[in-house]
């Protein structure tokens, strides 16, 4: 079984480099809402909007050999359920990975919307199910259900989604959802059920993933620790008589030589805003177990970017450069490919990669790194040997 490699769509603009925030593509500019970049402003004054830049990235990713891309959603971003149908017709192979919290939409609506998106794209929709970080942000979204109950709801939501998918009649009486004689109409009911990537590091999340996910998706953690986590997920799922694959979501900086890659990191590190450091040191109020696991890798003293190197080619300061995840891979094209292959050895069956700027880096990674990744054919040969 070969591995699947995805790219990412930047849903709140992006700078031209890892190492500085200007110029900034799109009409976001962290800390300065008035900032605009001619032609790439994204606010429609020239007839173009940010969706036109996102279309460029999606085309770059599909031309460069990626499966498609994750389209992240946060309070400050554009929304994937809008981006995907906007770009459906003009892309050919790009698969739209839509992250969403089940709480926010009726499951029958999601089934219909997904089947329609499958029809609009020729079956290129897949999910990244997330169940929310809790705390103030959940109430900002208008959701007041507690942490463990959220996973119960996620499980019920996916029960309903699968129940109505192939047509009806399907009835269900759960704690959160009740429906009668439901089911997708023809021809929506002919579409393939989307692949499900599942995020969440708590026990409640793992239990829900075991029931419904095709891929368990994790951020990059120290390799040994990640391998253990993958083993645990696979054991849990096997105990239920199912099989699950695992996937890693990781930012990368790949350059012709290792020195150039670290130089890029160093320059980015030197340009970090004071405000970013202040946020970094402030405690973060979140129920997310995954986020807490990421924070636990922080260095105790910080003198240079090197203090964030937690193992060869793994740098834990990515969140300081662009927000989002903490750990990423830095190195030469060969080194990055080797590290990805090591993750394959630990059980990874898919990757979501990203690098800034996503347009140019899609071509770089697609042309220079992907051809060096052996994937899982190597795994099978080793098992035979």
């Amino acid at each position: 079984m070969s591995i699947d490699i995805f790219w990412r769509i930047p849903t709140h603009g992006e700078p031209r480099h890892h190492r500085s925030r200007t110029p900034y593509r799109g009409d976001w500019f962290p800390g300065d809402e008035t900032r605009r970049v001619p032609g790439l402003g994204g606010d429609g004054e020239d007839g173009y909007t940010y969706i036109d830049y996102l279309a460029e990235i999606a085309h770059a990713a599909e031309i460069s050999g990626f499966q498609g891309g994750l389209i992240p959603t946060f309070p400050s971003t554009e929304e994937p359920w809008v981006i995907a149908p906007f770009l459906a017709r003009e892309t050919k192979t790009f698969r739209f990975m839509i992250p969403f919290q089940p709480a926010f939409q009726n499951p029958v609506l999601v089934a219909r919307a997904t089947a329609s998106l499958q029809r609009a794209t020729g079956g290129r929709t897949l999910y990244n199910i997330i169940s929310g970080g809790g705390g103030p942000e959940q109430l900002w979204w208008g959701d007041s259900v507690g942490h463990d109950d959220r996973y119960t709801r996620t499980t019920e939501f996916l029960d309903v989604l699968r129940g109505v998918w192939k047509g009806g009649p399907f009835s269900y009486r759960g704690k959160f959802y009740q429906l009668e004689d439901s089911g997708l109409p023809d021809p929506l009911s002919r579409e393939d059920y989307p692949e499900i990537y599942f995020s969440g590091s708590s026990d409640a999340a793992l239990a829900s993933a075991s029931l419904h996910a095709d891929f368990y998706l994790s951020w990059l953690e120290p390799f040994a620790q990640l391998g253990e986590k993958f083993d645990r997920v696979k054991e849990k799922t096997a105990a239920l008589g199912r099989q699950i694959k695992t996937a890693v979501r990781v930012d990368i900086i790949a350059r012709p030589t290792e020195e150039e890659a670290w130089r890029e990191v160093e320059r980015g590190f030197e340009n970090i805003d004071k405000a970013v450091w202040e946020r970094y040191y402030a405690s973060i109020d979140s129920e997310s177990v995954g986020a807490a696991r990421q924070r636990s890798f922080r260095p105790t003293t910080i003198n240079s970017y090197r203090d964030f190197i937690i193992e060869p080619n793994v740098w834990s300061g990515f969140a300081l450069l662009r927000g989002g995840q903490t750990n990423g891979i830095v190195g030469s094209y060969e080194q990055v490919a080797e590290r990805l292959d090591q993750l394959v050895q630990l059980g990874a069956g898919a990757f979501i990669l990203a690098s800034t700027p996503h347009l140019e880096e899609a071509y770089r990674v697609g042309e220079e790194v992907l051809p060096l990744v052996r994937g899982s054919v190597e795994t099978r040969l080793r098992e035979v040997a």
Partner: protein
Amino acid sequence: MTIEFIWQLPVAGDGRYGDARPTRRGERAESARPALSPGVSDPRGDRFNYFDYLHQVARAADLAGFDGIQVPDDPGADESWIVAAYAARATRHVRILTEFPASRGSSVFAAKNAVSFQRFSRGRFAWQIGLGGNEPQRRWYGDPVAEADLLPRIEEFVTVARGVTSGEKFSFAGRFFEVLDGGFEGPLRAYPLPPVYLSGSSEAALALSARVADVHIFDALPVAQLRPAIARLVTLAEQAGRTVAAGLRIDVLARETTREALFDARRVLDQSGTRRQVGDPALGSNHWQGLSSGRNGAAASLFGSYGEVRQRLVEYVEAGIGSFILGAAPHLEEAYRIGELVLPGVRSLVGSERRLAA
């Protein structure tokens, strides 16, 4: 005076002239047997489906001079927001009036998606919030809300969505929706909620529109019967200190002559096979319920020569209707017919120009 003409997308299927059988043009999966005989090679394979046709209808409306397209919410058809976004990318000028029920989920989430939609379409998204069907349809949808709560829920849905798009921090705890310190920031902040279209003929529905809607859509009625309802809407809106535009959902069957229109109307009726006791078209009013299936939301059709249909539309405008949602099968061909032969005359008679998006 600006009048908007909105063309309906036939999401559940379309038909040909004089053929009442619904078809989904482009849809390969549906027919069990090949479209062409074995002796004729068919190059299409499975490359097309009904989305390709809907795409054409949307562009036809844009090219033929309509101000908008309406994407109905039909449980037997593709989901309206997906169709709307797909159509938005294919068009330049038309408003995308998208129907959905307030049971779709979180109002905050809907509002946030609407912001992206407005940003990508340069402000062309509009909401038509419906009840979500009758009770069995709502159970099908997993919607437990009682009949009496449907309008109050729409009001909360709009209140919350408007609140979080107001640019200020917004908190709300209602019976159906809640939010704490909500609201969108940065570049997402500058986008007001899409225009809200509501409908219904009850006093409660009119009162709700008076409080929260931008447009209230009436079911098709002869203009004389519509006037009191429009007057009531205006009164209620004034009491609420607001203005609400009046809209009309009606199908059209316009031909070069009245005779042709009559002939085509009867043929469609014959072919529908129902032989319903619908009476003859009332030639005086050009207003006929006989062709209405109820499924597409039109309670009646305007039929007649181009001149007659134009004149009837002008009468509606004079009675206070500012927004028309029109439809006719087949929707691609008819979009051009109505756009070329009916709309320009109406616009010039009432002195209204086409609205072009920024």
